């Protein structure tokens, strides 16, 4: 109980985990992939709080509703699978998505465009490969088949280099489209494809939160206590509309923060954050 009294702030990582958790509806089947500790923690946080009936499918092990004793540095580890109620295999997991029964998936990208298309495959210059990225796993298929996608990135901030050039994470156009958002780069809407599901509905970043407007264009919905519309605009290559009811994002409560710290004693999730962002924290109201 003494520890509880001491928590007066939350970190950026904990804020992002909470916001990702808020995107998860109760009673759906949701799946986290690999290499995404913020999302792993968010799913467990959601299930423990507002979404107890969530069918939580762990990435890589395909265990359902596991209760990991601690977060591990790689995803396909027995610890992440401990306590699983039952298991899927690779075919069944992707069949569930293809048949429209996966409610939500979480995807990220080294490039994210205004329609929510993402690139994790390759960076190019004049059609030539300049940087081979790890690849998207099943992200391409799931971006088309899953009902809703939460997009997240902890590297929205794009500081200028010596020559004043910025390498944007939120870009006008992806060099390669690994996963599908609302419109193709030729602006063809996803409703023209034979997909039956709706696509991304939020982008949660280290600077703020976007949703998507009727056109399928990213629109700024919330900033953080230490960011502003101007800061987000400066770090985003495309122009974006701002929601009329723009808010400052809510922070998690103390129980949630304690849960996250208990589940991730090695602070694995901070590896997704830049060094400077690991120092960012936010005063909890009433603390």
């Amino acid at each position, binding site marked *: 109980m003494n520890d509880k009294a001491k928590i007066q702030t939350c970190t950026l990582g904990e804020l992002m985990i909470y916001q990702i958790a808020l995107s998860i509806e109760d009673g759906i089947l949701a799946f986290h992939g*690999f*290499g*995404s*500790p913020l999302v792993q923690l968010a799913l467990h946080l959601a299930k423990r709080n507002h979404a107890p009936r969530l069918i939580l499918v762990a990435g*890589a*092990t*395909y*265990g359902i509703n596991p209760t990991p*004793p*601690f977060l591990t*540095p*790689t*995803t*396909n*580890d*027995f*610890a992440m*699978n401990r306590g699983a109620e039952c*298991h899927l*295999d*690779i*075919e069944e997991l*992707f069949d569930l*998505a*293809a048949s429209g029964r996966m409610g939500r998936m979480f995807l990220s990208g080294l490039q994210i465009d205004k329609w929510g*298309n993402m690139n994790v*495959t*390759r960076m190019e210059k004049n059609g030539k*490969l*300049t*940087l*081979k*990225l*790890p*690849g*998207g*796993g*099943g*992200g*391409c*298929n*799931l971006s*088309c*088949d899953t009902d809703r996608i939460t997009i997240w990135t902890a590297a929205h901030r794009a500081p200028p280099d010596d020559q004043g050039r910025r390498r944007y994470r939120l870009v006008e156009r992806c060099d*390669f*489209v*690994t*996963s*599908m958002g609302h419109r*193709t780069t030729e602006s*063809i809407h*996803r409703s023209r*494809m*034979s*997909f*039956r599901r709706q696509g991304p509905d939020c982008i949660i970043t280290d600077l703020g939160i976007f949703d998507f407007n009727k056109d399928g264009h990213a629109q700024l919905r919330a900033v953080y206590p230490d960011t502003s519309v101007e800061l987000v605009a400066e770090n985003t290559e495309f122009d974006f509309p701002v929601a009329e009811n723009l808010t400052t994002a809510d922070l998690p409560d103390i129980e949630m923060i304690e849960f996250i710290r208990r589940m991730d*004693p*090695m602070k694995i999730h901070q*590896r*997704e954050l830049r060094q400077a962002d690991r120092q960012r924290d936010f005063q909890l109201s009433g603390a």
Partner: protein
Amino acid sequence: MYTQDDKRCTLGDLVTHVQTGDCVAIGGGLSWREPMAALRELIRQDIKGLKLIGSAHGIDVDLLCGAGVVAVSAESYVGFEQDFGMAINYRRACEAGLVKVEDNCCYTLVQQLRAAISGLPFMPIRSVQGTDFMQLHPEFKTMTCPFTGEQLVLVPALKPDVAILHAHYADQHGNLHIEGPPVADILFAKASAKVIVTVEEIIPHEELAQKGVTIPYFYVTAISEAPYGAHPTSCYPFYAYDRKHTACYYQAAKQGADSFHKNYLHPFVYNCKDHDTYIEAIGGKARLARLEQWDASMEQWMKLYE
């Protein structure tokens, strides 16, 4: 169909089933149950020009790329996740044009393997449309569904020449038992022309039957006993992931291709004439004991990942 009574062979003989230029499916996934001993032997025998297919992989594909035996990668993901980040040898080989990039996605691969398993020329999917995989894979076609009028993508059957797996147990007939997530191993075994397998232990059939047959013998071409054959990836419940050895691997790769040859490939692959010598090179039984005792306590388990 592989029906011989006794499929046991040496690790050296096992990998001779792989030919230069083969399309190879590697079992396991990320830091879990990669057939590392077999891959090191493949490198020692200089079997190259390989086309790799798979879902989510890491050190297995990166090692083969670092050793220069890969011509094409059609993997879905190759990396070290949040643990170490990008796969450096893989990146270097792709960016230098030594490895042709033909990335795929998990479900597309599943459907291509299912087509092969079902004896069909293709399988349809809805996904992939609207993405650049359609350009990267001109062999993917679209068609209008004769029943619903929807546009679907057809992906052709994929029959790997060889699947290389690491399992917990086999009997001498080649029945396999895998504990924990099979990842794509069962699909690979059913779709591939040949299946070669290293196992932690070969046990009598009665014992294996009790544990349960994950993959029936007639898919399996040959087996070789290689305890700790997945090291430095995990093979729970026998042993955990060797993060410290992987860190040493990653450092060697990070400092350049020459460093990787000198500081990793030579001491741990080329200079190890066989798997036993490799086990000595990584620190022998003392090192493995640490990995085996992952379940002694939660603290001990976490300590492996510091």
